[in-house]
Each structure stands twice: as C-alpha cells, then as structure tokens.
C-alpha cells in the first residue's frame, strides 16, 4: 500500500522559489501562466497488512507531525492500494 502526501505552502505565505520559477517561465515564453507555487511530494510505502483506514491514519500522522510545518504549510494525503 502506498500513501501520497502533498505538502503545500499556506495561502498568503510568500513562496520565493515559486515566484522565481514563474518569472523564468515567463522569460522562456510560456504564455498563460498566472502563478506558480512550489510544494513537496512524498511517496510512502506502508505495511501491506494495514487496513485502509489504519494506513490513512498512519500517513496523516506522519504528514501532520513531520512532513509539514503547520505554521506555514498544509498537507493532503491520498492512499493507493
């Protein structure tokens, strides 16, 4: 079983890296790009014996307590069988 965790900066928190990427893609001629926000993506392999809800709990705890910083970031967890 696999958990996918997406960690993104909260709305309103400045993202200098996203801004730099946005600026560069503009220079490269990509049109129609309004904004870029950079985040992090984690793939976590979970013990196959866990029930789906247990896997989700384990991954959510990890996302909340380690992978994200609640002061600046939000997280989203997806479980894949």
């Amino acid at each position, binding site marked *: 079983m696999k958990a996918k965790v997406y960690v993104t900066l909260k709305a309103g*928190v*400045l993202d*200098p*890296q996203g801004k*730099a990427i946005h600026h560069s893609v503009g220079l490269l001629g990509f049109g129609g790009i309004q904004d870029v926000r950079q985040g992090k993506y984690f793939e976590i392999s979970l013990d196959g014996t866990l029930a789906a809800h247990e896997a989700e709990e384990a991954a959510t705890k990890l996302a909340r307590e*380690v*992978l994200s*910083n609640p*002061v*600046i970031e939000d997280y989203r967890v997806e479980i894949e069988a």
Partner: protein
Amino acid sequence: MKFGVIIFPGSNCDHDAYHVISKHVGQPVDFIWHRDTNLSSYDAVILPGGFSYGDYLRAGALARFSPVMASVKRFAESGRFVLGICNGFQILCEAGLLPGALIRNRDLHFICDHINVKVETTDTPFTNELKRASVLSIPIAHAEGNYVCDDETHRELVGEDRIVFRYCDERGRVTTESNPNGSRDSIAGICNRARNVLGLMPHPERACEDLLGSADGRDIFRSLAATLAAHA
C-alpha cells in the same frame, strides 16, 4: 555556572560558540552530542549554527527529533536558558519552543554578510548588558532566515516586547532596504514568553573579536553570564 553547546550531525558553529564561552566569557563549557539527554549539570545551552541533517525536509525539521531535544524542552520549561543561533533558531521554531517559522530568503540567495541589528529590548537575560536601541554589527550566513508568523503571533510578540533584535541600517533605522531576507517586521531575533529562550539568525559568536571585524556579539554572551552569576 556551566554552559553546554549541543552538536547535531551537521552543526558547524559549535566550536565558535565553545570558543566564545571559554575564552571571552571565561566560563566552563562542554560539547553535548545530540544523543545525550542529561542536561542536569548545565545552566545554559546553545544550539549552534550549521546545517543539521543537511537541512533535509526543512531547515531544523529533523534535528527537532534528536534525542536531546526532549531534554532541551524540559530544560527550557524549568526556566534555564536556551540560545539558538541561526540553524539553532530554526530548530527552536520547528520544536515549538519559539513561535513562527523561517523560510527561504526573499531573494532566494544564501546571504553571507555583515549586517546591523538594533537591540529592541534589554528586558531579556541575553541583552540586559546592552543598551536599548543600540546597533550591533554581526554577520549573517543563511538561506532560510525569512521570519514568518501569523498576525496574532506578531501582535503577541510586539505586545509582550519579545522582538529582541530587528535588522536595521548603521544608524539604527529599520527600513525595507536594511532587511536582508524579507523577515516580517524586520525580525532578526525573538524570545519566548518566559524570556529564557532566545533565537536569532545573526551569528554573535562570529563577532566576538576585533580581528574578525566586530566584537559586538560578545555582550550577548556576557549578558547571559551576568544573569547566571546573579542567579547563583
């Protein structure tokens, strides 16, 4: 009085901090490996600068889980003194001992430079030998020093006189231009509510000898020593 300097894997300002305490403050000091958990013989601990755990995940995020950190938390709760410099400040924020977070510098660059900070309060054990509104020339060396916090936290910091240092120009004016990394309200250092935990991005331990360009950082360590002497 006894000082401890904690070494995390990737700390690199540990020897500078040790040198300042032993030579310029003239007090006993030990290195403390991050797996040690007994802090009972210390009166103050320093979390030094560096790149603990390679800054993986977020600066300071993994050092928070080092065995010593649970002891540091209890140490702080017992009223003893904790000083976090640069990466140490990042670790204290990640560990929840100080509010807010330190994110990538506004202009993305790693900045290594001498800057000026204004002493905003002398009502801390780390600044009580300094003059309020005085300007200290101290180096910074960081890529993630951009202090952020929500409005409520900021109101608390201001209301409780917990902003200890702000970036400023050489005349003590706090301006957008004198803010090197985009920190909210030009914040360079803050303390906790009990005022016994200080975190700051500048490196006072690198500004303790005229030979190094500035000795302005010395009084921060001397303030702490004076506080400890008064407590003894």
